[in-house]
């Protein structure tokens, strides 16, 4: 079942097109890795898929996934440096989208929140001030928040950036499990080509504001797009 579809979608900032004429479909249960060099428009595409940024031409359509069933990890958080919030308050806010207008957290919400914090190894930091955590710890807290929000679709913008090797391995396992067992659709931006090849089912490669490759991971290494990147050590 197709849950996301881009038809000739283009995105622009102040009239400058940074992505043009994208055509692809994402099916329920896919594990898509978005790759491409810095500035190729990966984060822009993610925002487009989340409808945070409307396309300047063409259309992006979503079906079968309600807004409250999407988990999202932004590449950068807009949240201010001096924001007073505990780690747990941040993770709990992941449960809000699914709540109606009146939002009080239930026991179930709190236990899902604590479970995800344990999974990412930040349970002991739950009372700490978010702004006083290290970069990697903040990243893990935001990942836990994304997991709390995700029911059908999980969209991660460079989730492994800033994580130590053990944590990023653990992260890949968590994501794989969500994809296999819970049939969650995963869309992930990554500079880690070997990780992408190992776990994903599909690859989307952006280059020079165009789609260079979209298709099964298996076919990527043999394609012209993949040939340049595969085998090269990831820079990140």
């Amino acid at each position, binding site marked *: 079942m197709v849950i996301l579809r881009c038809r000739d979608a283009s995105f622009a900032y102040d009239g400058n097109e940074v992505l043009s004429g994208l055509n692809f479909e994402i099916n329920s249960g896919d594990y898509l890795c978005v790759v491409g060099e810095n500035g190729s428009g990966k984060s822009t595409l993610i*925002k487009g898929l*989340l*409808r*945070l940024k409307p396309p300047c031409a063409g259309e992006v359509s979503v079906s079968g996934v*309600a*807004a*409250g*069933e*999407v*988990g*999202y990890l*932004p590449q950068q*958080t*807009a*949240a*201010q440096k*001096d*924001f*007073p*919030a*505990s780690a747990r*308050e*941040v993770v*709990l*806010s*992941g449960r*809000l*989208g*699914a*709540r109606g*207008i*009146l*939002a*009080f*957290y239930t026991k179930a919400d709190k236990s899902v929140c604590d479970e995800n914090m344990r999974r990412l190894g930040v349970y002991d930091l739950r*009372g700490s*001030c978010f*702004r*006083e955590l290290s970069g990697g710890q903040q990243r893990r807290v935001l990942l836990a*928040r994304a997991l709390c*929000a995700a029911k059908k679709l999980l*969209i991660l913008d460079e989730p492994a950036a800033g994580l130590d090797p053990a944590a990023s391995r653990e992260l890949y396992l968590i994501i794989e499990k969500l994809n296999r067992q819970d049939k969650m659709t995963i869309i992930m931006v990554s500079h880690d080509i070997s990780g992408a090849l190992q776990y994903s089912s599909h690859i989307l490669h952006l280059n020079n504001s165009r789609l260079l490759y979209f298709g099964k991971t298996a076919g990527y290494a043999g394609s012209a797009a993949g040939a340049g990147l595969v085998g090269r050590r990831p820079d990140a």
Partner: protein
Amino acid sequence: MLKALFEMLSYPFMARALVVGLLVSLCASLLGVSLVLKRYSMIGDGLSHVGFGTLAAATVFNASPLLMAAPVVMAAAFLLLRLSENSQVRGDAGIALISNGSLAVGIMLISLTTGINIDVYNYMFGSILTMSAADVALSAVLASAVLAVFVLFYNKIFAVTFDESFARASGTNAGLYNSLLAVLTAVTIVLGMRMMGALLISSLIIFPAATSMRLCKTFKSVTICSASVSAACFLTGLAASFLFAAPTGASIVVANIAAFFIFCALKAGTRIARRTKQSGA
């Protein structure tokens, strides 16, 4: 001191001021946490000037100040929100234009008709004597409604304040809650303006939040602390204004400034204490 306070409450206008002022202080401090964190502090300031312009117009046209100001300030709140969402620099300038523009229009209206009289002075610097019993009842109801809405939507307001794009992406209608904040702020400003004065009301929004952020590190504690600080400063300021016959609004602001510096000192104190403990151990 206590005797003086009881004496103060025996005047009906003081009792009224106490009820309305306490409610408005609570509303302002709660909304202030979000507004300050969202970098919307200037909106409060802009709205109070728009409020002044409207009150001036209301005096000229002999309309009810509260009823006339509320819708106009609300409309202005939406406009200012739009402006500051679109672009940082242009938004800032836009707010300044609207706020000074309405101040100027207000002053023009007044000087062309009644002239700067005591009413106008009161609108600018506040007075607790101007409120009728009906005003008090209306203010109390509105302020309670603002408080209730804030408590009901507390979690959503946190989410939208902390990370608006995540909130949007995960299905929260961020626009709705931003508008809600704007409406609640507009109502609070209109209610508080008569007592605090158009030039001072926005400090009621900014100070308690800024003060509690010195020490508190979670959203919940900042919220609770702001409300307490605001209430305490209001009571202190009101009492001081009664005892020393000082203007009410200014007294409350001075109390808030004092609280801010006390919190700064406490923060420095805890830091020094921690350092000496570390070097001692």
